[in-house]
């Protein structure tokens, strides 16, 4: 009996500790599942400015909480995705976007990987081309050497016979 009670207490304590282990828990009511999806998407795509490597959805920072509330209210008021993103960018700049926009300043960011990949492919192609040419030259040399060897051997064979 005492053991059963001890186990029960332990379970209760464990369960009480559970919610703290999860991510941020806030209850936001939505009338429309589309609005809920928009809220989820926005809080996952927008960066928290205080703990900079977290999005708004995961951050426990006070500012992130306020911004989630702000976004919640805007979504509830029927504002569109672009309107809410504009609201954030106006105040905090492109930095809040985990998906940076394509514009002259961010072009190196978007095109850089492709430029590096093309450069690597060009170097690779050049090396392969040079190797194949050198390989052909070596094969040619081999043929000449073989010819010479055969001739020398042939001469010896003639001497022996």
């Amino acid at each position, binding site marked *: 009996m005492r053991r059963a009670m001890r186990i029960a207490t332990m379970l209760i304590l464990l369960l009480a500790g559970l919610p703290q282990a999860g991510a941020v828990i806030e209850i936001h009511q939505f009338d429309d599942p589309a609005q809920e999806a928009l809220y989820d998407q926005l809080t996952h795509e927008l960066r928290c400015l205080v703990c900079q490597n977290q999005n708004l959805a995961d951050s426990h920072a006070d500012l992130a909480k306020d*911004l989630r509330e702000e976004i919640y209210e805007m979504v509830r008021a029927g504002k569109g995705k672009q309107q809410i993103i504009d609201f954030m960018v106006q105040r905090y700049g492109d930095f809040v976007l985990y998906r940076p926009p394509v514009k002259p300043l961010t072009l190196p960011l978007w095109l850089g990987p492709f430029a590096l990949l093309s450069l690597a492919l060009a170097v690779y192609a050049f090396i392969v081309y040079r190797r194949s040419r050198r390989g052909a030259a070596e094969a040619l040399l081999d043929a000449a050497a073989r010819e010479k060897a055969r001739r020398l051997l042939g001469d010896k064979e003639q001497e022996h016979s």
Partner: protein
Amino acid sequence: MNRKRILLFSLPLLFFGLLVALFLRGLELDPRRVPSPLIGKPAPTFTLPRLHDPAKTFSTAEMKGKVWLLNVWASWCVACRDEQPLLVDFAQRHLVPIVGLDYKDDPRDGKRWLAALGDPYDVIAVDASGRVGIDWGVYGVPETFVIDKHGIIRHKVIGPIQPEILEHRLLPLIRRLQEEPA
């Protein structure tokens, strides 16, 4: 052939040098200093209760035609403690009005904090909900904005103002802005 080879072998070295230069530059940059998109834009307007007289409000419209500073602070903000002596000293020179924005703070704590550390502000507005802070793009208290005579934000300092920044960047800017026609 030999010279070509030397050139080829020095290529990785060159690349390494380039990376080192990039990383050294990266060490100097502070990722917390996000450039504000509000610089060069009209300062967001607000009307908020005053800390010392909550029945009265302060509105940004009152500052029209003046160069002024907005200093965002809070009693819970540790870095504000470092900044306060500098601001108190600076306020005694009466060069420019300083408006305080008590950000997400209990007014009682705010007043106690000012009594202990000194009050450099001409007027203090209380932003209890943090809404005005969001409009101004505040994310790291203390923050200080320089606003010109036309109500345009001209500069922003994130974190405590350092004496060199005050003397070499803020003061020359304030003087220049004060000379501009209203």
